[in-house]
Every structure is written in C-alpha cells, then in structure tokens.
C-alpha cells in the first residue's frame, strides 16, 4: 500500500468527524462533502466502515429515517464524546502539520545552501 493511501486512510476519520461537526448528515451527504476536497478519499465506500467504527466507539450516534426517494437513511450526528475526541484529534493534527512544516522549511533551507 502506498504511503499516500495510508496517509489518506489515517486522515479520513478526522475528515469524517470534521464534516459531521455541528451537522446531522447521512452517509451519502458526508461522501459528497468529502468529494469536494481533492485527495481525501480512495473510494466512496471508505467512509462507511469509518462511520460504523465511530458509532461503535460512541463518537457518533445514528438515527434511521424513511426517505421518499429510496431505502431508509441513517443520519449521523456527533456525541459529546465525539466532539471532545474531535478537538483532541484536530489539535494533534495541527501539531503534526506544524512539526512537518518546520522540518520541511529546515530541509528547504539546507537544500538551498
């Protein structure tokens, strides 16, 4: 598996939680939000095991509603534990990105010399 694929998989859980932050969405809505951002998804289906796992971990809760256009839809929203986890994950992500940026700029300077 390529490094990029692994990175995407790791980041996708964070992306799903951020998409859900403050919203109540069903799976396909989340997929459509993530599709707008290049490089996030490997396949649309990747989102669903993540949602299932987040639900099992108590970070999101789901309610099923009938749809006039098709089968019932499962709407997800974040739990309090989910919001707390998201804050921690966003902090960790920011810290990771900052560290990588510092390393990159140091390496760019070294390359320029």
């Amino acid at each position, binding site marked *: 598996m390529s490094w990029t694929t692994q990175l995407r*998989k790791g980041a996708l859980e964070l992306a799903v939680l951020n998409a859900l932050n403050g919203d109540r969405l069903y799976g396909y809505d989340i997929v459509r939000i993530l599709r707008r951002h290049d490089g996030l998804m490997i396949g649309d289906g990747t989102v669903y095991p993540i949602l299932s796992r987040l639900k099992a971990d108590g970070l999101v809760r789901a309610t099923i509603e009938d749809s006039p256009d098709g*089968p019932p839809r499962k709407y997800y929203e974040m739990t309090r534990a989910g919001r707390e986890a998201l804050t921690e994950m966003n902090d960790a992500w920011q810290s990771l990105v900052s560290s990588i940026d510092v390393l990159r700029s140091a390496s760019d300077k070294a390359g320029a010399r």
Partner: protein
Amino acid sequence: MKTWTPDASNHFEAWLGRVRLSVAGDPSLDPDDIAQDLRAHVHAELEAMPEPVTVGALERVLDSLGNPCQWSDAIKAPSELSSAWFQRNVTDVVTAWQQRLGGDWGLPVLLFVLTLIAIPTFGWIGAPLLLFAYFVARSHVTYAPQLVVGRKKWLVYAPLGLGAGVLAGLVLGFPLTFSGGYPNRFETMWILGSWWVLVGILAAREPKRVRAALKPFADTFDASHGRLLSLVGAAFLIAASVVLLSH
C-alpha cells in the same frame, strides 16, 4: 423509488453479500450497518439516472465505491477466510441459483431446457414441446420485455429463434409439405418460385404481420423485403419455366 432491472437488483444484492463477507473479517464493524448505508448511498447516486436502473449504471456507482478490501486494513477479502470461501463459492452460488430459478429466471431456464429436449426428439415429442416453448417465449418477449434482459435473454431467444426458423421454413416450403416431393428439381423450383412470388406480395402488403410473426428477429422487416422475396421467386419461376419448356 426507482425501478431496477431484475439483473441489476440481483447484481446489487450479490455485491452487498460480498461486502458483508469482507466486512465480517473485522470484528469492530457491523456488516448490517454498513450494508444499510451502502444501500442508501447507491440509491441516492442512481436517483438522477434514467429508469430502469441497469447493471451498467449500477456498476459505475459500485466502481466509485471502490474495493471493500481497500476500505480498511482490517477488512479481509472473502477468499482469505476459509469459512467465507465456502460461503462464497458454495452456499452463495446455490442460493443465487435458487433465487433466480424461484424468481424470474425459472421460466427462461425451463424454456431453454424444453428447447434442448425438443431438438433431438423433434417429431411427436419435440414439435409440441418446441411449439409450447415458442408460444411462452413469445408471450414473455411481447408482454414482459423488461424481464427479458441480460444473459436471461438468450435462454428465451433460443426457443424463439428455433420456432421462428421452423415457422419461416414451413411458410417458405409450404408447397413441398403436401406433394411428398416433385419428380424433378425444376418442377420444385417452379412451384417454390410461384409460391414465393405470392408470399412476397402478401409480405410486402402486410410487413407488420411478418414482424409480429417473427418477433423479435424481423423487427426491421419492411415492404421492400417482401418485394425482394417476390423477385427471387420470380427469378426461380422464370428459370424453371425456361428449362421446363425447352424439354
């Protein structure tokens, strides 16, 4: 809710079954949960597509979902699980056949089997069997064309093709069925030529009836084809007349 072709529905259910198997390899996932989300996703994606939903349209959506084995490191391909292998290769295959035969595959398979039996036993046994299979197949094509799609189509087309061939042969060779054969081939040509001129004129006048009789194999038949048959008949008639008069 959109209508789907039976093939597309079967294909989707089989695909969902494979996804459930793959996902079952990861104890942290709920296969039913994921299948429910996927069902809603696929229906939403197909919402803008024309009806009925075909296997081709469905395949494009399934492709965009990606391979379930790539969704998570913990998800295993069904082939990596021995029980899953048995489930996929034996139980699922048998179940799929049962569902098909129990549903709208039953009749096409029966028609095809009847046709296969009718060919070697053509006569007192085979002819009625073929006639029955042809009649039912025609009813299927005429009144339930939405069920005659995909691979199923060929099972229904087998008795139709054979029946239409026999029917066309009987009509075109009609004078020969009574005579028991003519003493020489030029007399046969003369009789057949005269008959084909007549049949061609009738077919040119009523192309719709020919299309209906040979449906779905003569959908492009028109008056010009009837006239062509008359011309061929006339050529036979003239050639045979010349030979017969010269003797």
